[in-house]
């Protein structure tokens, strides 16, 4: 029977079982962190943080976030509020900002180990030690939000459909 249409499903990286997926590479390990709350806010970021997570610190590129909650700065007018669990905040405009729940919109990959800087150097050309107000950066060709939660542990937030690709990229360097 002639092939009339290609199965493009085979084109994409297969998604692993995220509840158990783990990479143990040379000097690093990686896993996906599940169940965090993520709320995208645009506009008056000060008002958004005061309303939804008062006192939460702002985190930029390669900054160390000591604990959730925190406001991950990803643009001049935009931040991703990261919380230990999804926020109950209603979506929509108010007080000069708009809130968009996106708990599942971004996958959070956590990379840990002495090889962390080597991995980051492979994935992006940004000077991480110079810092940057925005955590949004090109990593392995896709936009991620990059910061740390410890000296040798980093997290990447990536649009969920791209998580399998980024996972395959990490596995490829094992």
């Amino acid at each position: 029977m002639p092939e009339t249409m290609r199965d493009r499903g085979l084109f994409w990286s297969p998604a692993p079982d995220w509840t158990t997926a783990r990479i143990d590479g040379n000097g690093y390990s990686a896993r996906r962190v599940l169940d965090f709350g993520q709320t995208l806010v645009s506009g008056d970021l000060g008002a958004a943080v005061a309303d939804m997570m008062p006192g939460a610190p702002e985190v930029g590129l390669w900054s160390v976030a000591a604990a959730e909650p925190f406001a991950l700065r990803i643009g001049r007018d935009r931040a991703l509020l990261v919380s230990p669990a999804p926020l109950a905040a209603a979506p929509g405009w108010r007080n000069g900002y708009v809130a968009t729940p996106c708990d599942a919109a971004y996958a959070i990959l956590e990379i840990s180990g002495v090889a962390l800087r080597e991995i980051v150097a492979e994935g992006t050309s940004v000077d991480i030690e110079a810092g940057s107000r925005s955590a949004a950066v090109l990593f392995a060709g896709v936009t991620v939000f990059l910061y740390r939660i410890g000296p040798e542990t980093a997290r990447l937030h990536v649009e969920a459909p791209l998580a399998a690709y980024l996972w395959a990229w990490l596995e490829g360097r094992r």
Partner: protein
Amino acid sequence: MQLFLCPFCGERDETEFTFCAEAGKTRPEPAAEVPADAWARYLHFDHNPKGATREVWLHATCGEFFLMERDTVSHAVAGSHSLRRPEA
């Protein structure tokens, strides 16, 4: 690799940026009365200077539109400026 300067983020790799337009173009108005050749000039024709130029660029990862002054021969970047109006 070349580094461009985003007014918000600082220096980033050129691959994070997208050219938008030459700066200083004025959209012809009123749109309904603008003849086709004037629209074509506005949309498709650039001065494309050899040397110093001013252009609008987008830092795609953070979403910042900004004005960049650069040299089209040497590729040297003279400066980047926010397009924001000063706060009232």
